[in-house]
């Protein structure tokens, strides 16, 4: 299979403008007859559904929560980047483009990233127009902060609730279109398969989570915006329901999966406290602006943090990376924390934590300023741990946070299945092997508001003659039958172990062998273990209750079955990439001082995996990455 990214001709700075000007349009009279399915109503999906509705398409939108306002995007704390240069610190579209390519360790596609940087400014304008209450300065203008991996202040924020405010903005735009009957909203629905007719995506099979009914929905095109799959690790900062099901089903129907092993481990999360733990909580990266990270200089130091004098503290990030200090990119900060803890310098009862200390900033700026900046985060921390971060340093440890991998898409955000699109975190996206902070919100809204609604015209303009396909078409029947069979197979196992049992096992294996550091040997071992978990799951899982009604255990079981299959592909992917880049750290490939060692001669490509069938080895395809506008250098933050 030859992968064609469909990158437009021309200089990097002109591509998008020229492409937009020449893309075929669908006239308003025709739009009324064209139906688009949008699965997922987080930032990417809500923005896309609202905008497509405004343009006049007939939209059907789906989410599994009880309301589109609750998508996982709501939990984003820190902020959203845009090349506005309001801080007058030399920022520009080119600099944002460059930072993103470099931050991603040169594993993303130049043309897409440049477009992202270009539309970033319009996002802020759009959100402000919707009434999103971003933080402001006393003069009434918008305030900015800086984030890891960059040296300018380009991050817009709304206290520690940026994702919430942006999502509520997108939700309000979506609600307006629902009110106008341009968008038909299906909450508490879970997509369980995509329907392909004559080689094109023409609909989905969804389960009504309240009644348990399996429904068929037609669309001229299908847009997936279903978020990331970090929950493959069981413990992650993702919401409990975040899953891989929609993109995994698309993958099994022929959509290639890009860079599945590229996951982001976030350096500042509240450490695990016990076996009962159901999820991990992020402490926004913005904290690294004013907090200093340290561990004791002595191994197994059991003194309280306040009792350890200044000269006996090791501010290891400032020591190793003087230029960026506490603001190095996430992958580097995470690995450095793991390195210290593995070497015996960790703190807290588990010894798997480091300190994030605000005492210097509180002394310098006063408690009031720190409270205004991070008050809600400090509160969350105190609620969970019972400790007061104003008086004692936070304990933090890395946790799974984001998945750079996802469905492979071309410049139009179309997957390898014609008519099937992937937007937001669920595509393999613009972040290469590591995402910079505050760039996921930017990408989700860029895709949803400004890119997809335009690029989808390319496909739909050729489809204006196509009449809505009735859902009694044999392909709909077949897809529905397969879904129903899978559900009844699952329900009839009637084994002994609840779903979580398998999910926890899977998570442990992936975290251990395909997490912060990986090795060929470990990965081979892990592959066998995951296969065993899969066999065990299909023999011993117990799904109680009935399929024809609300059944959260069944929902979980369906998701976990897909996570297990995905786990194996992640392992294959990590095994095949014999280099270290960004979040992918292969122990065999590191410099003398323990930094990631990239291999641009052999691995400057996107891995795009093709599904070959149950128990068949997936096949690797490569999209070579061509860098014409940035020079590939070893990433250095020293």
């Amino acid at each position, binding site marked *: 299979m030859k992968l064609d990214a469909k990158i437009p001709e021309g200089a990097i700075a002109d591509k998008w403008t020229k492409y937009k000007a020449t893309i075929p349009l669908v006239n308003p009279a025709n739009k009324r007859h064209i139906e688009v399915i949008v699965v997922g109503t987080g930032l990417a999906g809500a923005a896309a559904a*609202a*905008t497509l509705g*405004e343009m006049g398409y007939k939209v059907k939108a789906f989410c599994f*929560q*009880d*309301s*589109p*306002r*609750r*998508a*996982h995007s*709501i*939990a984003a704390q820190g902020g959203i980047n845009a090349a*506005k240069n*309001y801080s007058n610190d030399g920022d520009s579209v080119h600099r944002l483009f460059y930072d993103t390519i470099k931050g991603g360790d040169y594993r993303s596609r130049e043309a897409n990233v440049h477009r992202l940087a270009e539309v970033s400014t319009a996002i802020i*304008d*759009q*959100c*402000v*127009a*919707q*009434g999103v*209450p*971003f933080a*402001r300065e*006393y*003069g*009434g*203008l*918008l305030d900015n902060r800086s984030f890891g991996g960059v040296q300018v202040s380009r991050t817009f924020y*709304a206290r520690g609730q940026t*994702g*919430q*405010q942006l999502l509520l903005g997108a939700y*309000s*735009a979506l*609600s*307006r279109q*629902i*009110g106008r009957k341009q968008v038909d909203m299906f*909450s508490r629905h879970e997509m369980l398969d995509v329907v392909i007719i004559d080689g094109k995506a023409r609909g989905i099979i969804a389960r009504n989570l*309240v009644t348990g009914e399996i429904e068929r929905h037609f669309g001229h095109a299908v847009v997936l915006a279903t978020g990331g799959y970090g929950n493959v690790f069981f413990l992650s900062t993702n919401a*409990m329901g975040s899953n891989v099901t929609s993109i995994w089903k698309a993958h099994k129907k022929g959509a290639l999966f890009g860079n599945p092993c590229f996951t982001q481990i976030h350096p500042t999360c509240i450490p695990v406290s*016990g076996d*009962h733990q*159901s*999820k991990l909580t992020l402490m926004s990266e913005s904290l690294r602006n004013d907090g200093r990270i340290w561990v004791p200089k002595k191994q197994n130091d059991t003194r309280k943090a306040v009792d350890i004098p200044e000269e006996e503290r090791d501010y290891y990030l400032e020591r190793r990376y003087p230029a960026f200090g506490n603001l190095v990119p996430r992958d580097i900060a995470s690995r450095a924390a793991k390195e210290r803890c593995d070497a015996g310098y960790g703190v807290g009862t588990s010894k798997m934590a480091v300190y994030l200390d605000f005492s210097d900033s509180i002394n310098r700026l006063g408690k009031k300023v720190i409270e205004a900046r991070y008050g809600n985060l400090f509160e*969350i921390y105190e*609620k*969970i741990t*019972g400790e007061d971060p104003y008086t004692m340093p936070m304990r933090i440890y890395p946790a799974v946070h984001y998945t750079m991998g996802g469905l492979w898409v071309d410049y139009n955000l179309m997957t390898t299945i014609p008519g099937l699109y992937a937007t937001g975190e669920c595509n393999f996206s613009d972040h290469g092997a590591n995402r910079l902070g505050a760039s996921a919100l930017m990408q989700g809204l860029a895709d949803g*508001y400004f890119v997809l609604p335009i690029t989808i015209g390319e496909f739909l303009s050729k489809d204006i003659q196509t009449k809505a396909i009735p859902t009694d078409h044999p392909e709909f029947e077949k897809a529905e039958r397969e879904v129903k069979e899978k559900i009844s197979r699952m329900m009839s196992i009637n084994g002994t172990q*609840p779903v*979580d049992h398998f999910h926890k096992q899977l998570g442990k294996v992936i975290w251990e062998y395909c997490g912060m550091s990986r090795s060929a040997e470990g990965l081979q071992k892990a592959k066998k273990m995951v296969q065993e978990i899969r066999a065990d799951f299909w023999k011993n899982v*117990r799904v*109680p209750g009935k399929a024809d*009604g*609300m059944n*959260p*255990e069944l929902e979980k079981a369906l998701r976990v079955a897909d996570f297990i299959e995905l786990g194996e592909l992640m392992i294959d992917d990590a095994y095949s990439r014999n280099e270290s880049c960004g979040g992918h750290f292969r122990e065999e490939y590191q410099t003398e001082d323990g930094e990631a060692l990239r291999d641009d001669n052999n691995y400057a490509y996107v891995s795009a995996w093709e599904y070959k069938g149950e128990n068949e080895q997936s096949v690797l395809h490569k999209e070579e990455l061509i860098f014409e506008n940035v020079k590939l250098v070893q990433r250095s933050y020293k």
Partner: protein
Amino acid sequence: MKITLKVWRQQNGKTPGEFKTYQLNDVSEDMSFLEMFDILNDDLVRKQDEPVAFDHDCREGICGMCSMYINGRAHGPMTGTTTCQLHMRHFKDGDTIVVEPWRATAFPIIKDLMVDRSAFDRVIQAGGFVSVNTGNAVDANSVPIPKQDADKAFDAAACIGCGACVATCKNASAMLFVSAKVSQLALLPQGQPERHIRVKKMVEIMDAEGFGNCTNTGACEVECPKEISLENIARMNRDYLVANIAD
């Protein structure tokens, strides 16, 4: 800790429900309230029983999905705290805890502790937005907004749409929720053109959805996990009055 749970069980909206009692012997102080329910459910599945259905997603106090009525209080005993952020260290060994769903005509029960809050969505659809299409916006800094106004708008915008205000109100009124959205937009220049029509439409749908009247008891403000202020209700009442006089 040993905890006794009395949990409301109801198969669906059509069948009557009842309390069932469960004994948990090994609850850790560090657990969240929902993690305790995870353990209960794990137990129930192993015993071939049906687990308790409840809503939750982010478990970080921000999505607004979790919704338990605990010992007679929406989201439990702590102020400014959602159910998912409530930790067991606030209970004592040997405690009996009664857990019910939100109860309100406008929030019908789906199963056990899960209710249907889509009425909130319909209120927002009636007018909780600024009518601006994608691509029509002016530069974000072209309209400066005084920091105090922006901050106040933010305070109102912090509402997570959980419905605790409705559940806790003896009239099942949705005034706090609706007024939070009305206020956010009324405080910002972007919200001015539709200010009157917005408040009228949202109030109209709120009434049609079967939420009760506000009699100023203020219970909502006390139980709201985001500490949304009653001031918003006053502001909305004024706007509503002005909007109707303007007609």
